[in-house]
C-alpha cells in the first residue's frame, strides 16, 4: 500500500481523519466525565440547517460561510436547549431531543424546498462526508512534502482541521487545571472561585468548533463516534485523567488509521473492486475498540463494584 499513489491519494485523507478524530476526542473526554456525552450528537445534527441556511444566503458552496452557519446553528441549539430546560423545567436529555430533531427536520425541509440539485449538497454528504475524495493531485511522492509549489495544492480541509486540532489542544492544555477541577468536583471548583458555568460553556463551544471543523471534512458520523468512543474506551483503561487523555488520543488515531485502511484496502483484499465508506468504517473500528476495552479493560467496572469473572 505504500506505493507511489500513497502520497497523493491516501496521505491527506489519513491525516485529515486522524486530526479530526483527535480534535473531537479531546473535548469528548471532559464531556463524557460531565455526562454531557450526547452534546456531540446534538451538535452534529443541528449543523445541517446551519450549512443549508448559509448556502441559501450566499448562494454558493464555500467553506467559510458554511462553517460560520454551522457554528451559529450549534450555538443557537445550545442556547435553545438551555432555555427550554430552564423555562420549561424539562430534563436535559429530553430538551436536547426536542431541539436537535426539530432543527434537523427544519434543515431537511429547507434543503428539499430550495434548489440545491445543481450543487453537491445533500443529507447523505452531511452525514458521512467524503473523506476519500480529499486527494492531493500535486503530491507526486514523498519529496512533494518539501515542495512549496506542490504543498499549495493540498486539500484546504487539511490546514483547517490541523488548525482546529492545535486550537483544541491549546485550550485543553491552557485550561487544564480549571477544566479538571470543575469536571470532577464542581462544588470545590466554585469554592476556589472558578467560574464553573463559564468553563462549562467554553467547553461546549470548543466542542462545537471541533465538531463543525471535523464535520466539514469528514461528515457527522465520525464526529459523534469520536466524541464518545475513544474517551469511553480510554475510561475503561485507567482511573487517571492524564492517562485517559493519552489513551483516548491513541484510540482515536488507531480508529482513524485502521478504519481508513480497512475501508480503502479491505474490500480489495477480499476480492471486491469497490471501497466502502471510510467514515462508516472509522466509526465501526472505534466501536470495536470500545467493545474490547469494555470487555477486557482493567478499569471497566464502577469503583467499588465487584469484579465479575
Amino acid at each position, binding site marked *: 500500500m505504500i506505493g507511489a499513489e500513497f502520497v497523493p491519494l491516501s496521505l491527506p485523507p489519513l491525516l485529515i481523519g486522524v486530526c479530526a478524530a483527535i480534535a473531537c476526542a479531546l473535548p469528548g473526554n471532559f464531556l*463524557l466525565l460531565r455526562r*454531557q*456525552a*450526547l452534546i*456531540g*450528537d446534538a451538535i452534529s*445534527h443541528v449543523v445541517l440547517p446551519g450549512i443549508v441556511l448559509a448556502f441559501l444566503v450566499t448562494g454558493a458552496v464555500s467553506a467559510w460561510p458554511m462553517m460560520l452557519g454551522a457554528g451559529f446553528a450549534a450555538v443557537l441549539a445550545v442556547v435553545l436547549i438551555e432555555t427550554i430546560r430552564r*423555562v*420549561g*423545567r*424539562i*430534563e436535559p*436529555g*429530553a*430538551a*436536547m*431531543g*426536542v431541539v436537535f*430533531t*426539530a432543527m*434537523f*427536520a*427544519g434543515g*431537511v*425541509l429547507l434543503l*428539499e*424546498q430550495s434548489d440545491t440539485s445543481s450543487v453537491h449538497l445533500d*443529507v*447523505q454528504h452531511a*452525514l458521512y462526508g467524503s473523506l476519500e475524495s480529499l486527494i492531493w493531485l500535486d503530491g507526486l511522492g514523498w519529496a512533494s512534502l518539501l515542495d512549496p509549489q506542490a504543498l499549495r495544492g493540498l486539500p484546504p480541509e487539511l490546514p483547517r482541521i490541523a488548525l482546529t486540532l492545535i486550537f483544541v489542544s491549546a485550550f485543553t492544555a491552557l485550561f487544564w487545571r480549571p477544566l479538571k477541577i470543575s469536571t470532577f468536583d464542581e462544588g470545590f471548583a466554585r469554592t476556589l472561585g472558578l467560574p464553573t458555568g463559564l468553563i462549562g460553556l467554553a467547553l461546549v463551544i470548543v466542542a462545537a468548533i471541533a465538531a463543525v471543523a471535523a464535520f466539514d471534512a469528514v461528515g457527522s*458520523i*465520525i464526529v*459523534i*463516534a469520536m466524541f*464518545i*468512543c475513544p474517551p*469511553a474506551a480510554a*475510561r*475503561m483503561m485507567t482511573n487517571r485523567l492524564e492517562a485517559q487523555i493519552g489513551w483516548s488520543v491513541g484510540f482515536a488515531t488507531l480508529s482513524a488509521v485502521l478504519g481508513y485502511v480497512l475501508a480503502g484496502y479491505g*474490500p480489495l483484499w477480499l476480492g471486491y*473492486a*469497490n471501497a*466502502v*465508506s471510510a*467514515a*462508516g*468504517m*472509522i*466509526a*465501526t473500528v*472505534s*466501536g470495536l475498540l*470500545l467493545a474490547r476495552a*469494555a470487555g477486557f479493560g482493567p478499569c*471497566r*467496572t*464502577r*469503583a467499588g*463494584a465487584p469484579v*465479575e469473572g
Partner: protein
Amino acid sequence: MTGSTILDALTLQLGYNASLVAVGAALLGFAAGATGSFLYLGKRALVSDAISHATLPGVGLAFIVMVTLGGDGRALPGLLAGSALSAAAGLLCVTWLTTRTRLSEDAAIGAVLSVFFGLGIVFLTIIQAMTAGRQAGLESFLLGATAGMLRSEALTIAAGGALVLALTLLLRRPMTLASFDPDFATASGLPVRRIGLAMMGLALAITVVGLKIVGLIMIVAMLIIPPVAARFWTDRVGHVVLIAGVMGGVSGYTGAALSATAPDLPTGPIIVLVAFALFVLSLLFSPGRGVLAALVRHRRHQARVHVRQGLLALAQGQPIYEHLTLRLMRRRGLIRPDGVATEAGRAQAARALLDERRWQILRADPRHEAAAARYDGLTPLETLLTRDQIAELDRTLKPEAVT
C-alpha cells in the same frame, strides 16, 4: 399548493395510498406519543435515539441477504425484520454497557448510535457497489419518504400502526405504574424489569414501523416531543399519556396529509415540525407551567407588592415617587391623578397599616412562631389567625394605635 388541496389532503381525498399512509401515521403517532410518555417519565427519552440509529445496519444487511438469496432486496417486511433485529442488538449493547461497565447511560447511547450508524453506512456503500448504479432506495430509510409508496407498503404501515397502538393500550396500566413509581410497582409484585423490557420493545416496534414514514434520524422526535409538550398541560400520568398520544396522532396525520399535497414536502420533517409547533404552543400558552402563565403570575405578584408598599406609604403620609406604583394605584382608584389619596385609598391604606402593625407584634411574640414564618409582607393576617387571636393581638396594639 392551494387551500383546497390542503383541505383535500386533510379529509383524505388524495388517493387511496396517501390516505392509508395518513391513517397509519396517525395511529403510529398516537402510539409513539403514549409510549414516549412512559420513556420520558422514566427519564430514558434518549434511549430511543440509540434504537432508531441502530436499525440502519439491519436494513442494509437484510437487503444484502435477500439479494444473495435471489429475492427482491427491497421487500419491506424483510427490511423491517432486519431493522428490528439490529435495533434489538443495539438496545442490548446499551443495557450491557450501562450495567456491566462504568459508562453512564448517555455515553452508552452515544456510542451505540454512532457505531451502529457507521456500520450501517458501510453496508449502504457495499449495496451501492452491488447494485452498480441502480438506486437501491434504502436512502429513504434515513429521512423517510412516502411518495411513490407501493400499496403493499402502505398497508404494512397502516397495519403496523394499528398493532403498536393496540399493544400500547394493552400495556398502559403496568407501564404507568412501572415508570411512575418503580419501587411501589415492585412492592405490588409487578415484574418491573419485564415491563421495562416490554416498554423498550414497544419503542422498538414504533421505530421500525415509522422508519419508512419519518426516517430513522427523526423518528425519535415522535417519541420525545409529544410527551414533553403534554407534560406542560397536566401533572397526572394518565392525562400526559393521553394528551401526548393525541398530539402525536395529530402531528402524524397532518404531516402525512400535508406532504401528500406537494412533491417537495418530505413527510418526516413535516411531522416533526408539526409536533414541534405543538410543543412551542404548549411552552408558551399552557396554564401553570407555560411561559405566558408564569409571566402573568409574575406581573400579578409585582402589582400586589407595589400596591401594598404604596398603601403603607399613603398611610404614613410619605410621598410616592415610583412610577409603576403610582400607575397601579391610579388605575385602581386609590389615588387621584395628582397623587392625593381617594376615599377608598385612605380606607385601604389604614387597613394595610393596621395589618402591618399586627404582623409586627405577632413576629415579636415567640408564641406565634409558626404563624410568623408565613410573613411575606403581602398576606393579610386575617387569612391566618382566628378573630379571637386577632382581638388579642389588638389589645397589645391599642395604646400605640391611638397615638
